[in-house]
């Protein structure tokens, strides 16, 4: 095995050995197999073509994120609309919480439904763009770390959807007050689900494909 620019010796991977590792259970199979016979998961080679799936879910999530911010998340009706009928979008909801002095809760909502989704879009797009490109070991570790954070944190954006669901179920006090969910609740839930699917479709093995330098078989096997 040739040693590359990187001084660390190349690590034997299933791909270099002409084998396929199961991403679900770790079992290794010959490249001709298409399904893991231990756990039944489909065997997928680490291939940049799988990034198309990541991008497809990413765009679906981004498209749903626009109505999620434009339309109201929920509408509050007090005294059958006499004392006011307020509709609030995600950002207006945060502003409202700050207005009432609930800074800590405002921060939770702001982070969960504005910062995390935005950061996730940027992080997934960046990971998908640099995947398979040559990188040093430190860069690869950073990328894997970012991937793990994105995978872990993505589901927490659902908080705002749950809040709307709880409030609209609970606050049904007839004449006094009632809360109804708005169209943004559905599109925000879909946006979060689509970005979760996008992150799940990303194959972290691609981060390491170019390490430390592509060997001859690697270059041949690239699609």
């Amino acid at each position, binding site marked *: 095995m040739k040693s590359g620019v990187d001084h660390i010796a190349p690590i034997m991977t299933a791909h270099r050995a002409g084998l396929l590792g199961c991403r679900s259970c770790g079992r290794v199979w010959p490249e001709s197999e298409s399904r893991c016979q231990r756990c039944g998961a489909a065997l997928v080679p680490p291939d940049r073509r799988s990034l198309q799936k990541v991008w497809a879910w990413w765009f679906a999530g981004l498209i749903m994120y626009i109505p999620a911010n434009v339309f109201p998340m929920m509408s509050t009706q007090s005294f059958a609309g006499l004392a006011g009928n307020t509709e609030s979008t995600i950002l207006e909801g945060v502003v409202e919480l700050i207005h009432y002095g609930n800074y800590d809760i405002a921060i939770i909502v702001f982070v969960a439904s504005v910062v995390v989704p935005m950061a996730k879009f940027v992080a997934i797009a960046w990971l998908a763009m640099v995947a398979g490109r040559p990188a040093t070991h430190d860069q690869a570790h950073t990328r894997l770390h970012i991937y793990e954070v994105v995978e872990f944190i993505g589901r927490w954006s659902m908080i705002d959807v749950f*809040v709307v669901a709880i409030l609209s179920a609970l606050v049904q*006090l007839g004449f006094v007050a009632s809360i109804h969910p708005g169209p943004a609740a559905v599109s925000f839930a879909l946006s979060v689900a689509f970005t979760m699917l996008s992150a799940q479709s990303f194959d972290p093995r691609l981060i390491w494909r170019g390490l430390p330098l592509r060997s001859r078989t690697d270059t041949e096997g690239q699609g």
Partner: protein
Amino acid sequence: MNTPENPQLSYDMKTGEGLMACPRCDALHVEEELDPGETARCIRCGGVLAKPQGGAFVQLIALSFTSMILLMGAVFFPFLEISRMGFGNATSLFGVALAFADGILLPLVLAVLVMIVGLPVMRSFLIVYTLIPLAQGQAPYRHAATAFRWSEMMRPWSMAEIFVIGTAVALVKVAGLASVHLGPAFWAFCALILVNLASRGFMCQTTIWDAIEDAGLPTDGRELVQGRRA
């Protein structure tokens, strides 16, 4: 776990037998039996490959049953009670589902219920189904591998702990509008978080996959040639 250069362990670079690939970075490792309490990490990305623990299967079964019972309580008991000016309302999750049964938001409510109750119950059931025969040292039930794979696929979509945080936020938002009391279902969800954390600590996928394989699930005949482990 060792790199394939270790000559003492038997593996086959042609068929992949006796090898394990890191699901995160594809680095090859030779499979080796670990003692309870040991942790195997990937030589390349440092991710945990296996972390078996003694008696983990029985603990996982017990925790799964606990989680199922807690979820039943969480569905049918009220989780928040609200009152203002004599108008009161107590909601159980079941009540929420019924209240929205004819609205256009039915899909949203169904999705929420599936994520916070349906999937956690399903996961607990699948884990129990997979592990009960393995804990007794018997051959796994039919489709145990599929059951366990599905339970792992459902993991990111079961969101009971996020729901609890959502309840806390909802409490603050509604506090100015009316007075709110927490019901028993809320505490069931809180207990569920602890149960899930404990369950995650005991869960080692690699060990369970090995157990399913070793307990005689037909794979590709290699085990038959070498003699099945009793």
